[in-house]
């Protein structure tokens, strides 16, 4: 029986359409009923370099990529050189004959070599050289018996914007490559990816899209941002959808302006969001403090990439946890969410606004490149659209204000620290919001007592917000010898590691921390109380989450697996490191 789970890797230069064909292929598999996990790896340049897109396909839900590949689609010599070794026995390599391939070694490892004249096929059909990527996809479909009509439907969708001619040429190229490959190598590859009959229609989505979607349904009406990998697609997605759904999107001159604009917009009463990465967030830090001081409900998406400075611009890391937690001078409440899945990204997208408005403080959704830009299939109803609700907290309505007697105190002292908020524009609630310390009416003060009381008022909100912070998500058996602990994007790789360990007869489970600040210490301590041996897996060099867990729960983490080479964790990477610890 042919293998029905596999990983494709499409490797080539920037400008060869690796990412777009990868994403298109991922969608095609989903349409044919397969579960998909797709991740991209690219260099920070427009042309050249070496990029790849990796798609894992299976009949059961997938949560991560894997390190081994089954079929390599190499568009350049570099792709051949870098990735041939990763192909598993029984797998194959598709590339043009003109590329140098060490056939003897491949043969020894039982890896098939499929030389296919991709460029010639593209040209014969009247296509440009760049359409060799379409030819490669057609060839891969031919090798695996993947239904051509499904691939054609995705090609039609993807090229529609470029006109009928572009659609037609690409369709011809895909079809020609498909048949050429079937004729030549028809039975030569032991993988089979037919259409799965009666499979439900699933969505293919990445973390950025899920956050944007959640924010949109959650009433976000203003987005300000400056393009920065890996957060750019949040800004772009909103820009594409803004007119239709009533969102004003502003590409700003810099991230300082983005932060200040969302403060201005949120102050006037509109749900406002700014997506960025660590570098942009660095510029936003002073503004973050202003939002804290003026108690303005803003939401920032910080999709991490490796720093410091430019670091590895297109890669992944979880190195900004303590930075976002401490960013800006002084002490003020903030809320940090670290979603780990597409579903959690969606929830964070709308929940962040409810938290921001309820606690009148900045909320940061901390994501990373791996989560932001990897796609996964999810069931069509996996995102609970109708479950999204809007809670604006203690926001005074026009009616409340009409009935107001006496002076309106924007920063009134309350036990919860939350002061009823009026939006500027009502004659009875004309007030100052200032970054200076202020008295309850918003007037600037330097006196000791109001300073102490306002500090206590603001920080009290954190205590309240703690009641809404959810504990870690467990996976695996309740009791186990090894408990893997992670946060954010490690959810998928950790979950698959637990599955692999369980298959091997080992006893392992995991905990995924998703709400980071205020730190749900009791829930984390409780969740860790059954753990025999804990291993913290996180994408940074210094163990930032481990230090938070230890500081707030008093529980010591036994072992650490840290990755900071810019690449995401895979189950195989974690398994290998587990043997060392």
């Amino acid at each position, binding site marked *: 029986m042919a293998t029905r789970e596999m990983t494709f890797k499409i490797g080539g230069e920037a400008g060869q359409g690796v990412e777009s064909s990868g994403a298109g292929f991922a969608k095609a598999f989903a349409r044919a009923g397969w579960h998909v996990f797709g991740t991209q790896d690219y260099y920070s340049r427009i042309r050249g370099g070496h990029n790849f897109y990796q798609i894992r396909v299976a009949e059961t839900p997938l949560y991560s990529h894997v390190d081994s590949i089954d079929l390599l689609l190499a568009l350049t010599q570099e792709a051949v050189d870098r990735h041939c070794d990763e192909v598993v026995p029984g797998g194959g390599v598709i590339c043009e004959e003109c590329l140098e391939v060490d056939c003897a070694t491949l043969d020894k490892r039982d890896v098939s070599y499929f030389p296919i004249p991709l460029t010639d096929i593209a040209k014969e059909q009247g296509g440009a050289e760049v359409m060799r990527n379409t030819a490669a996809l057609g060839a891969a479909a031919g090798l695996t018996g993947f239904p051509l009509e499904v691939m054609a439907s995705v090609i039609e969708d993807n090229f529609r914007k470029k006109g009928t001619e572009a659609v037609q040429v690409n369709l011809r190229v895909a079809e020609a490559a498909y048949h050429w490959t079937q004729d030549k190598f028809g039975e030569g590859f032991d993988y089979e990816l037919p259409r799965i009959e009666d499979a439900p229609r699933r*969505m293919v989505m990445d973390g950025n899209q899920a956050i944007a979607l959640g924010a949109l349904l959650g009433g976000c009406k203003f987005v300000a941002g400056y393009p920065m990998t890996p957060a750019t697609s949040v800004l772009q997605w909103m820009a594409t959808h803004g007119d239709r759904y009533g969102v004003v999107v502003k590409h700003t*001159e810099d991230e300082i302006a983005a932060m200040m604009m969302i403060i*201005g917009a949120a102050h006037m009463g509109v749900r406002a969001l700014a997506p960025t990465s660590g570098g942009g967030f660095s510029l936003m830090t002073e503004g973050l403090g202003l939002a804290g001081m003026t108690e303005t409900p803003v939401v920032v998406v910080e999709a991490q990439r490796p720093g410091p400075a430019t670091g590895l611009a297109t890669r992944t890391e979880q190195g900004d946890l303590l930075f976002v937690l401490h960013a800006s001078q002084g002490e003020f409440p903030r809320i940090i969410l670290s979603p780990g899945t597409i579903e959690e990204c969606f929830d964070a997208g709308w929940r962040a606004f409810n938290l921001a408005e309820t606690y009148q403080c900045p909320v940061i959704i901390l994501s990373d490149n791996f989560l932001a830009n990897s796609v996964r299939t999810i069931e069509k109803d996996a995102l609970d659209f109708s479950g999204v609700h809007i809670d604006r907290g203690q926001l005074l309505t026009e009616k409340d204000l009409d009935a107001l007697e006496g002076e309106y105190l924007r920063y009134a002292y309350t036990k919860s620290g939350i002061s009823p908020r009026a939006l500027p524009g009502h004659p009875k609630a*004309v007030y100052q919001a*200032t970054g200076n310390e202020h008295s309850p009416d918003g007037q600037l003060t330097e006196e000791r007592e109001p300073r102490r009381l306002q500090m206590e008022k603001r920080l009290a909100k954190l205590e309240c917000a703690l009641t809404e912070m959810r504990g870690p998500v467990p996976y695996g058996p309740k009791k186990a010898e090894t408990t893997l602990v992670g946060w954010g994007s490690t959810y998928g790789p950790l979950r698959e590691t637990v599955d692999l360990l369980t298959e091997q007869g080992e006893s392992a489970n995991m905990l995924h921390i998703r709400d980071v600040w205020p730190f749900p210490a009791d829930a984390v301590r409780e969740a860790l109380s059954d753990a025999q041996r804990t291993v913290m897996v996180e994408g940074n060099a210094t163990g930032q989450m481990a230090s938070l867990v230890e500081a707030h729960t008093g529980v010591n983490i036994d072992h650490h697996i840290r990755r900071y080479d810019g690449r995401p964790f895979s189950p195989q990477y974690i398994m290998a490191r587990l043997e060392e610890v």
Partner: protein
Amino acid sequence: MVEFQDYRSPVRPTWCKGCGDYGIWNALKFALSELDLAPHEVLMVSGIGCGSKTPDYTHVNGLHTLHGRSLPAATGARLANHGAEVICVHGDGDGYGMGLGHMMHAARRNLDITDVVQNNRVYGLTKGQYSPTSPEGFVSKTSPQGAIDRPVNPWALALAAGATFIGRGFPADLRHLVEVIKKAIQHRGYALVDVLQPCVSFNRAYAYDYYQPRVYKLEEESGYDPSDRAMAWERAHEWGDRIPMGILYQVEGEPTYEDQVPVLQEGPLVKQTFREWTENDFEALRSEFI
């Protein structure tokens, strides 16, 4: 009818006696009340500095932000509620130093914001350092040998950036300043009002006695046409024995940024209710990913 007194706050200014900020503060209150704008209809956004405390001393919606950052805050506020009259009030260190980049972008976007810059050509609140508009050779605590930097020319910069209204006033001629600010508020689009603000504590050399004999009104110059960009460019560089004030440049009828954002044609964003999502919307959103 809105009265001057409606803008009166119980909080008294902490400015030095004789500070030009008093005049600018009064001019703002006169302008707003004479235009029949009530305090709750206005959002006054400021940065950091002596003059940026203006909203704190005024009964008006105030957003007292960070040094140099009032314009982007005002931009966000205006996009969220273009029914509000948004006025920025900040000094030269704030507006022409740290915030200069934001000014260029605010000007080219042409949002309907009035930008009043209290230009005293020195840092007052930090007690006497040279500012972006201090003259060359200006001796201060951070330029003890005299400033080497040449001063910025706010009028020329605003003109180059595409501002659709550029004016100047002097608080010692209060009525004139009020009129310039009123015209700036009434202008549809970004309006810069550069105000020659005497600082009697840290910049006595460029205070009342310096400006009084030098300032003249462009509107009294025969043949001066504020819609003529070339004329404006020339006068923007006039600075010395004669210092022009009034309206340097005004082009009317240019669409504002707000005019061109489709979503805002439905009315101020903050007044637009949350969308009632339908199954059709959900289907449309899901279908993108299928």
